[in-house]
């Protein structure tokens, strides 16, 4: 990047981007509208505090701005086996879907447009607990939602210190990746 934050120790720091945030940045369609919708949704559903809808848009923003994913969208997926996901009071789980900038595995194939395939991302809080039954439930719900069971999902672990870590969860046994 050509412009950098410059300054001398103890001196005034110059902000290189000008005083105003450009209008194009203010209205980034990839996350702004979902953000607002989720805020309104959570305000209308105070019992939903434990749900993952609020962190879904933060994960989506992280994928968008930090990891340069594209085609990002937020999906409310009906949970098929509801009792297995007690943290969701509305009977839905909020998932993110998007396309990585490049293949995540060297063995992955591209889609018909020579792009990396889209991934399902399950946003969760790091401090929460998980179980095998909940994974089965999430795979099952995605299968019912899109008519096809995914081979794998990404689990996005979100913490309040702004860290987000991503882990693959594969259905069944897979050969470990070659690095």
């Amino acid at each position, binding site marked *: 990047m050509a412009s950098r934050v410059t300054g001398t120790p103890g001196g005034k720091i110059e902000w290189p981007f000008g005083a105003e945030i450009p209008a194009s940045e203010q209205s980034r369609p990839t996350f702004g509208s979902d953000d607002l919708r989720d805020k309104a949704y959570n305000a209308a559903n105070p019992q939903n505090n434990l749900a993952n809808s609020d962190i879904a848009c933060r994960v989506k923003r992280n994928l968008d701005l930090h*990891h340069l994913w594209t085609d990002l969208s937020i999906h409310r997926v009906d949970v098929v086996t509801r009792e297995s996901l007690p943290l969701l009071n509305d009977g839905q789980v909020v998932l993110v879907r998007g396309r990585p900038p490049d293949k995540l595995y060297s063995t992955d194939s591209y889609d018909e447009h020579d792009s990396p395939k889209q991934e399902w991302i399950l946003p969760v809080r790091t401090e929460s607990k998980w179980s*095998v039954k909940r994974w089965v439930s999430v795979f099952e719900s995605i299968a019912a939602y899109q008519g096809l*069971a995914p081979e794998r999902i990404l689990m996005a*672990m979100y913490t309040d210190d702004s860290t*987000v870590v991503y882990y693959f969860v594969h*259905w069944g046994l897979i050969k470990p990746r070659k690095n």
Partner: protein
Amino acid sequence: MVDDAISISVIDGEYFVFDIDAVKRLRNDHHIAGILVGTLPQVPQQSVFLGLPVQLMPEEAALLVQQGVARIIDESQSHEPILAIDPNDIDDATAGLKINEIESAGSESQGPLASYTTPAITTVDKLVLPDSSVNAIFETPRFHMYRYLHQNGYFISPGLRFGSHFLAYPGDPLRYHSHYLVRGVGYDEEFSLLDLVGSGRLGTGVKKAWMIGAHLPPDQQDKTTALRLPGAKVGEGRESSDEFVSFCVEWAGFG
């Protein structure tokens, strides 16, 4: 019980095999390697060269009993007849046990020591514990996981070195690196996501995957069939069975 059943000695709740032929059979026919734990009486601290006995995990002993391959011997009871020997008759007694030493020696170069075998205690029926002595192991999540991997042809060793229950090898551990750090849980059992982060990152760092799985309750067993991917590639030609569901976790490579 077949006559050539492998004798597994239980000593203080741990399982050992003392017979080298049984150890060979376990490795070749049942892909169970176990761990050599015997050291030298003169140099008990060295742990570089270990020999017989082979120690088995409780799950291994239980599976072998379940398959009718092995029986469990109560080793502490088998010591009683020996301890009961009158010290005055000790020479007669040892003469009776006397070692099939020199006979099988064959080669002069090895000498008598090479063919020395531990005197075999005659296995009398009362020392054999009933198969039910391992029943408590069968219902544990660890056992379900062990059996699932064993059925899929994996060699399995203890997983403590990587903080898991087991390590699963695609072939003999002398020839292959392990593929999975394995943890068996109950279907409903909660685990911390920090465990997932830690184990997943460790596993990916050493070119393995963290594998976690559970035995499905009978009323849930239709689920895996419904979720089985039509024509999807399944790793190494294997996938979750109807009774067992498993997941592999790896770091995504970013974040």
